[in-house]
């Protein structure tokens, strides 16, 4: 009997152990020894050793891995054309695409980094750049290709290159519903509220957003359009002040913006089932006419233009404080510090951003993006994209607080925390206590860096 009991316990321990084992790593030497005797790049050096072995084994020193993601707009074809063009001009260098799957690309790259298979070049590098020793310093001749205003530094070093500038967020609307209800594009906050009320009173749903399928799609669109713009109009150095402890998320502007948003939700302005939708489902429902408006980024304009869909218009969401401020974010590429062919990697970057404007143009056009190069690259825009840009002509442009790169970047995990908090507020959570939790979490994540 005792023997049986012991066997049962031993089996149980093995099963439970599987869970804790998931938090460990089989790379015992790489993570513990290096931590003791080297600094900063300990883990990445180990990854480099692993990679070195792989390179030697394959006997191909000029192979680059290129970590990308794909969307409905930025398709496999965009990346393949880029790679094919480069390989044609540089037959001695081979580029292999590594596709980030799933919705959490940051987690995907981190997993690859931990496993020693981090790509040589990655897109959306800004999310990892705050960690030391991940990316190589960008040579001056490559930096010179870009608009200096878009370059950023980490500990005094330029380790990423700006790939594009993307405008966020404006309000797309169903022209037919607006026509039916005799509505005009609103230019003030009050007019915007009246538009919502008129649509609601007509028995239709004014606004669409995403939910648990893509947590960012619930609150980020409204927050970027109203929260970032209001905060940065009032506190231009918000990120710096927040980082240095001289500012708090919990201020009257934040609370006011989120309270107004919750009031709109409570007034029934948002689609009732929005919280169970993914971003794609929400966009699809909006296009089907389930809701009259949807706050979204410039990629929606590019998508509508791509479909030659003229059923939708777009207007800049009127800010609560009346300021003419809009948000545009830069995204960045980085070359891994562990890359064995850094020259080839930077050659690839130079090919995309310097030598061949057609490649860069196709990339930008696919998603309604704007160039960050010193010599601007432009493309023929469709009617919705043109309107999108015209809406914010002469407006001040600020960078989204939560994705600002460089020294005052928000700590990793803060964006996802806020996204969840937006959902709590959407479902009736107390705005004041939610905002207080932002400060607590910001400090906790900052301390963990």
């Amino acid at each position, binding site marked *: 009997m005792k023997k049986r009991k012991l066997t049962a316990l031993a089996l*149980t321990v093995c099963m439970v152990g599987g869970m*804790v084992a*998931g938090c*460990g790593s089989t790379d015992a030497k790489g*993570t513990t020894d290096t931590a003791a005797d080297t600094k900063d790049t300990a883990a990445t050096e180990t990854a480099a050793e692993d990679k070195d072995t792989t390179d030697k084994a394959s006997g191909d020193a000029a192979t680059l891995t290129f970590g990308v993601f794909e969307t409905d707009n930025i398709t496999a074809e965009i990346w393949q054309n880029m790679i094919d063009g480069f390989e044609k001009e540089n037959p001695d260098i081979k580029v292999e695409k590594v596709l980030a799957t799933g919705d959490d690309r940051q987690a995907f790259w*981190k997993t690859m980094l931990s496993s020693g298979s981090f790509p040589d070049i990655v897109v959306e590098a800004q999310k990892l750049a705050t960690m030391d020793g991940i990316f190589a310093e960008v040579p001056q001749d490559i930096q010179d290709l870009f608009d200096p205003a878009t370059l950023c530094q980490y500990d005094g070093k330029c380790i990423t290159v700006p790939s594009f500038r993307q405008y966020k967020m404006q309000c797309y609307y169903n022209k037919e519903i607006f026509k039916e209800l005799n509505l005009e594009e609103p230019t003030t906050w009050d007019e915007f509220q009246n538009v919502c009320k008129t649509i609601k009173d007509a028995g239709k749903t004014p606004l669409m957003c995403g939910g*648990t399928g893509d947590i960012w799609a619930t609150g980020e669109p409204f927050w970027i359009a109203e929260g970032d713009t209001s905060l940065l109009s009032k506190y231009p150095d918000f990120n710096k002040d927040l980082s240095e402890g001289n500012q708090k998320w919990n201020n009257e502007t934040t609370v006011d913006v989120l309270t107004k948003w919750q009031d709109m939700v409570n007034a029934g302005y948002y689609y009732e089932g929005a*919280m169970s939708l993914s971003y794609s489902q929400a966009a699809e429902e909006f296009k089907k006419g389930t809701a009259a408006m949807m706050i979204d980024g410039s990629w929606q304009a590019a998508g509508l233009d791509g479909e030659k869909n003229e059923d939708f218009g777009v207007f800049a969401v009127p800010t609560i404080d009346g300021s003419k401020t809009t948000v545009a974010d830069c995204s960045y590429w980085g070359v891994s510090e562990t890359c064995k062919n850094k020259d080839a990697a930077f050659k690839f970057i130079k090919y995309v951003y310097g030598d061949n404007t057609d490649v860069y143009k196709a990339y930008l056009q696919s998603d309604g993006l704007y160039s960050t190069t010193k010599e601007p690259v432009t493309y023929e825009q469709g009617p919705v994209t043109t309107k999108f840009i015209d809406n914010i002509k002469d407006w001040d442009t600020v960078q989204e607080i939560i994705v600002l790169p460089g020294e005052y970047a928000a*700590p990793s995990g803060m964006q996802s925390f806020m996204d969840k908090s937006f959902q709590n507020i959407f479902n009736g959570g107390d705005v004041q206590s939610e905002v207080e939790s932002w400060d607590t979490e910001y400090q906790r994540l900052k301390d*963990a860096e």
Partner: protein
Amino acid sequence: MKKKKMSFGFAAPAFVIYTVLLVIPILMAFYFSLNKWNGFNEMTFIGLNNYLNVFKDSRLGNAVGNTAVISIVVVLVVNVLGLGLAMLVNKASAKSNIFRTVFFIPFVLSTVAISFVWKSILSYNGVLNSMLTALGQSGLVGNWLGKQGPAIVCIILVEIWRTLGYHMMLYLAALQTVPQELYEACTVDGGNRWDKFRNVTLPLIIPGMSVSILMSIINELRMYDVVKIMTDGGPGYDTETVVYNIVSQGFSNNMVGYSSAISVVLFLVIGAISIFIVTKMSGKEVEA
């Protein structure tokens, strides 16, 4: 002596695999939990600070609450229904075999795949609401995955549906070890159905029951995939489980040391529950 060496030889591969893939990572997780570490740069030894933070973390507390609710309901239902179904299909007939297969199929399917299927059924514009509308029952249409109460109920229902067949099989295996003569003896003694169940079936299936209860507790306390796919822990944090929290802390927040500490605490909790159940249940075991 030669026989002994041979035995070691046969055990060696399993021993090496378990040591490399399980024992070493477990020990490393213990080590990481004593450090502040983002997973890439150098570690800083901080002693038991991560463990102290585990008990102060309100978001983790919420995840513990959700995990407890899911675990208690699922463990109770799959064990009670699993035993009931096992008794119903515990007959050697073609129909029973069909039912056994049907009930077991959900457990064989990929959890990720069935989670996506259930998500598309339960979405606001999904199959369930469309059917209700088509049947003229618009009043019953609900935001199943978008509100806290319904969302956690959906997770529980899917988890019960997914694991019920497995627990039915465990009970079925246990039921088939009960000697038929004991039932006959009970009949001779004037026992009715309930007497047979209480005095014959139940005491003799205790070993199978303890395995089933233990497996269901361990599975539910480790729940991640269904939640990740169906609700992504949302809306807000409403359906976050402990393991979802561990993954978020480690991969989204770069707090590998802290997430290791939560894992270690969960490991100890599950270990303690397991020891308690194995000890208690084995005391009730009887030999046929």
